[in-house]
């Protein structure tokens, strides 16, 4: 992708024979460097308050919803705590054991006893019935509030994160090409998906746990209200519980990571082995790979075993502590009941509350896990949002006319990417409307850069590139791209139908127009041969299309968009001759009457163009028609000779009468697009050009 020599910087020192190899290294190394810059800025702070506040700002449109949810958490917790009081203070103390020595002790009941007495008198029914009704009422109110709270919270949090996700996506969508030169797409991708999901977990689990702690403190308050010293006795276990949770988390932290690593290493290994299974079997590596997989499998088992030891211990502690506390309450609280300091019901309320209180403390350990993960996620999201790297856009973009004429001028263009090495040096040329210009030159000469500049993928200085005499920098990049159609070497297939891939979901492109475009560039026959024609679903990366077919789709896509200017980077890889002829023909029709710049690799393509520009080390070396340049006996001549030196044959080919050439072409096109696919693999109709091979490439 990234232009080869572009950022070679120091590595350019030895530009040995294979420039193609240099391309691979340079861009990757560069990618690594800059991409780590993208990630290195992360602080990995455990508790990032600023980030949290920023996240809160995003909740603003939904704050009524979220605040209501928070209020409901408080109310429903309060009702939840009243239920044990109802059961024990009212039913046991007041109704069932009124005669017991302790019943008269003045303990708090939060008006429940009075209410019961009032209802008994008012409704003329026994106390037990009243208590039951109250209990049911409490339950219903508490549950319904709980549901309302959960739904409000979910809806608020989900909408907040939808907004955040869309905003993040929008900002990524508009990042300039230079951004994607450095940043690995996979890493950016997780920010849109799992990082946002992590934040959802953060918001919901935060409020949920906050709710638990509301219960904790309310219960604590009520207990203190009942009996101070008994509360202390009951609370004795809480510090142990907290300590156990903390120790457990610490102990397990490293193990959890080791398990995760071992699982992913196992999965990666298996996935790669499966993808390369043919090579594995051809190399006779089956046993060897099995053993390597077993190493990973064993490591995983080892780590899982380690985790169990801690898990089991922790489970046990969690199970035992409430029981121990209950024993303490019975022993100490029972004494107080005997001394008539508290009622029996109060003592039982304590045991009920205890179970409610232990749970949030042990859950705290989990909350921290979520918190750490989410903080990191939040940081990554906001960093991507903040990443200030955008194209320089004019403040008042020039209003382009309905239709451009198609003059292009490069005027002393000098350009370099981030690094110091200059890619284009004083490049000047003009193209008249409707003219086709072929650019040729060795790898790394800056050919692709010209395309990228014209498509306004990068920033460059003013007064360098003009379309119809207007400085490109005075136009909005969006407007330019609507007028300049770009066909890149690697055609990207999006999952969706063939039609979607031609129209790119642009509502302005009708079905008829898309089909017309496909027809013009010779894509129609193979599309018709697909199972559902234009409505055939293409898999991502277009595995069910051959390279030639993808190329034709790319042509159709640009033709449908009907741009005044066309820039095209011809694919280099060789396909069978028939397909190639069809592509040539499609290309010919595509460029007809359109100002075109073509980075050409093939003789036919070059010969179809009006003029040829030879680029070498970023400089325009030669420009002119084929005959002029051949006459010049310069670089083009050399390149031409290198590729087509068998002059007699080249001559023979050029000397063929137009009819003969057309006949040969037609013969090929017919042979390769119309005939039956002999392999007829399942799921693939008649293959068209390069029909599918029935054997799945493993």
């Amino acid at each position: 992708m990234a232009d080869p020599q572009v950022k070679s910087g120091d590595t350019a020192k030895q530009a040995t024979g294979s420039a193609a190899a240099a391309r691979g290294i340079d861009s990757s190394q560069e990618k690594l460097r800059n991409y780590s810059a993208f990630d290195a800025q992360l602080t990995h702070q455990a508790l990032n308050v600023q980030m949290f506040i920023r996240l809160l700002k995003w909740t603003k449109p939904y704050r009524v919803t979220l605040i209501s949810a928070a209020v409901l958490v408080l109310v429903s917790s309060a009702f939840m705590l009243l239920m044990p009081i109802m059961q024990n203070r009212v039913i046991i103390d007041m109704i069932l054991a009124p005669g017991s020595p302790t019943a008269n002790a003045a303990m708090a009941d939060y008006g429940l006893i009075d209410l019961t007495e009032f209802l008994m008198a008012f409704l003329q029914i026994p106390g037990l019935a009243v208590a039951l009704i109250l209990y049911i009422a409490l339950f219903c109110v508490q549950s319904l509030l709980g549901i309302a709270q959960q739904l409000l919270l979910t809806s608020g949090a989900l909408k907040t994160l939808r907004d955040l996700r869309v905003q993040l996506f929008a900002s990524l969508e508009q990042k300039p090409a230079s951004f994607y030169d450095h940043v690995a797409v996979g890493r950016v991708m997780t920010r849109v998906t799992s990082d946002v999901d992590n934040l959802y977990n953060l918001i919901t689990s935060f409020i949920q746990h906050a709710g638990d702690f509301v219960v904790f403190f309310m219960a604590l308050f009520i207990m203190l209200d009942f009996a101070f010293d008994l509360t202390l006795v009951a609370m004795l276990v809480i510090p142990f519980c907290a300590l156990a949770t903390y120790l457990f988390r610490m102990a397990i932290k490293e193990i959890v990571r080791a398990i995760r690593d071992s699982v992913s290493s196992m999965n990666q290994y298996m996935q790669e082995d499966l993808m390369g299974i043919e090579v594995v079997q051809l190399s006779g590596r089956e046993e060897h790979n099995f053993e390597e997989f077993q190493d990973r499998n064993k490591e995983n088992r080892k780590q899982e075993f380690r985790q169990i030891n801690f898990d089991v211990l922790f489970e046990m502690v969690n199970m035992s502590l409430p029981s121990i506390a209950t024993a303490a309450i019975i022993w100490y609280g029972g004494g107080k009941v005997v001394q008539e300091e508290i009622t029996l019901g109060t003592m039982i309320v304590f045991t009920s509350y205890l179970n409610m209180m232990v749970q949030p403390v042990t859950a705290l350990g989990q909350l921290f896990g979520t918190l750490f993960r989410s903080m990191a996620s939040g940081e990554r999201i906001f960093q991507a949002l903040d990443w200030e790297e955008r194209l320089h856009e004019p403040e008042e973009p020039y209003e382009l006319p309905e239709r451009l004429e198609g003059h292009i001028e490069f005027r002393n263009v000098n350009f370099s990417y981030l690094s110091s090495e200059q890619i284009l040096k004083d490049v000047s040329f003009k193209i008249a409307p409707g003219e086709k210009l072929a650019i040729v030159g060795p790898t790394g000469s800056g050919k692709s850069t010209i395309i990228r500049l014209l498509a306004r993928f990068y920033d460059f200085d003013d007064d360098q590139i003009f379309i119809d005499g207007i400085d490109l920098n005075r136009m909005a990049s969006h407007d330019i791209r609507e007028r300049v159609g770009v066909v890149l070497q690697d055609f990207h297939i999006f999952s969706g139908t063939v039609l979607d891939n031609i129209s790119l979901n642009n509502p302005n492109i009708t079905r008829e127009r898309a089909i017309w475009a496909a027809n013009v560039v010779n894509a129609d026959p193979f599309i018709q041969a697909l199972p559902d024609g234009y409505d055939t679903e293409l898999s991502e990366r277009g595995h069910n299309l051959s390279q030639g077919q993808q190329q034709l789709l790319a042509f159709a896509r640009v033709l449908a968009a009907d741009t005044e200017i066309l820039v095209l980077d011809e694919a280099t890889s060789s396909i069978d001759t028939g397909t190639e002829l069809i592509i040539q023909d499609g290309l010919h029709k595509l460029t007809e009457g359109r100002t075109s710049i073509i980075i050409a690799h093939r003789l036919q393509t070059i010969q179809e163009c009006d003029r040829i520009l030879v680029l070498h080390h970023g400089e325009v070396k030669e420009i002119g028609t084929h005959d002029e340049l051949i006459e010049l006996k310069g670089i083009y001549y050399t390149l031409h000779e290198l590729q087509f030196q068998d002059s007699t044959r080249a001559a023979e080919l050029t000397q063929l009468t137009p009819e003969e050439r057309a006949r040969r072409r037609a013969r090929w096109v017919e042979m390769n697009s119309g005939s039956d696919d002999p392999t007829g693999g399942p799921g693939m109709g008649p293959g068209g050009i390069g029909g599918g091979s029935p054997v799945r490439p493993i």
Partner: protein
Amino acid sequence: MYVGSRGGAARSGFGGPTRERSSIKHLGHLKKLLPYLKRYKWILIICIFALLIQRWCMAYFPQLMRTAIDSLTYDHIDVNLSGPALGMLVLVAIQAIIYIPARRVLRRMSITITYDLRKRFFHNVQYQGPAFFNLFSTGDLMSRAHNDVNQVRMAASWGWVQLATIVFTLCTGLYYMFDMSVELSIYVLLPTPFVAITGFFMARGMYPYFRERQEAQARVSTLAQENLNGIRTIQAMAQEEHEINRFRQVSTEYIKKYYRAVRYQAFMGFAMSAITTISPLIILGYGGYLVLQGEITIGTFTAFTAYLMMVTQPIASIGWSLSMFTAAAASTERIFEVVDYIPEVKDSSGSSVEIDEVQGRLEFKNLSYTYPGGATKALNNVNIVLDPGETIAILGRVGSGKSTVLRAAVRFVDTPRGMVYLDGHDICDYNIRDLRRHIGLVPQYPFLFSATIKENLTYDDPSRGDEEIWEAAHAAGLDDAIKDLLYGLDTIVGERGITLSGGQKQRATLARGLIRQTEILLLDDCFSSVDTETEERIIEGLHAMRSDLSTILISHRVSTARHADRIYVLDNGKILESGTHEELLSKGGYYADLEAIQSNQDEDRSKRDRLIEKLQDEQVTAV
């Protein structure tokens, strides 16, 4: 309890195809796991027995509470607090002693089972042929190995114990309840079957909601991924705004589905707790009435509440356990579909030919083949003879059957006996791995592992020395590229390393094939992504390395094929024409046509060398 960490892994796991909802009829598949459990039979029995004791301890707890409470309530009973309190501590201690080792052993066992399953899974997959891989995609297999195995582990670690102890807990809980008051017990237990039924339907009813949510989520990530991968196209075609709008729609759809799932859960949760609350209400109402009547004590009254918890909890979880078991059963089926799959291509059971020395004579005799499910013959009476030391080229358009011929020779395509012969013996008589040791195939699609170049090139035999590697790399025209890499041979390539260009990948796979120096080498269109000049160099390298070895190569280019001793042109699975370059040219058929059209790619070595010399300072390497 620690679903957190694992849930995360499962979520980010592998998509795989959408699976059917598991149902009870799947449960039978679980018996496939029995052989894995048998080894641990005694451990299992001891552990379950131990856990039963532990459950009994739990069940005895409310009895102590009851004693203490009654002693506080009624004047005629002496106050007895330290007894029950101490008793509770003793129970806790006993539980700990039992629980820790028993639970540990059971969980270790479940992990060992998953370990065994993965092991067999991977091992079996290693030996499968194309038919298998056409049936199961990589994503599907990964999902089976990961998600399904985890599902089984859940059932193995929780399920068995749960099942055994649920029954026991129920029994003890019920025993104490009935012991205290038969009447109250009957009333209290009336609603419990409904709890179980609701729980079961709830667990099942969740499924479509979750599936919809999952699918909506998948759409969000698919859209994001595609957009970012194709960002240049989107930007070049100025489609950003449409895409952002589409993304907003998809995201909104996702949160809608998510919300729906949560809402369902919330309402079902309400229904569930409403039903489970009926029993406590009965205790409060009827039990309270009985207390007032003096038929039961207050201690009994509170103990009942505690037992109720013990009884309803397992009942409520019956639904959950059941759905977990059915899911595990369905997973078991999916795992064993793979584990029990028998490779179609097997070593023949009869006497196999020992090969020590192979001459390198490969013969295809009336080779015909139809792909399973294919309507027409992919190959029809193909006769090709490759003599030792010869090079043969096969030409033909896409789908003409070229690859099938090569794949038949290494038994990637399983042709019947009597069609392919190596040194005069039917290849079906050879041990497959021996066969592949002597016939090398470089497949059409270059695949490199995420490992160093060196490891990739010496994939069959890591002990190869650097000298051999450089020789192969040189022959494949890859040596310059390797030298340019920062870490040379130790540079990591592939998915997690440096991305090589298509041509470099192709040359690397070629080098991997060349290094083996097999008596027969089959090259399946290995030059499509390299330019003509490099191709020329590679052909030269091929000549040097394989001068007395046999080679078959597939190509689109006449310039490649012309160097071969013989050329075969395939069309529709039949040999259209064959002969030497000159013979075919003079025939004026398909090959001659091809030659005429491709002549621009033809090369004249001496002339080109001269030009290169002239231009060396210019460093023009390729157009």
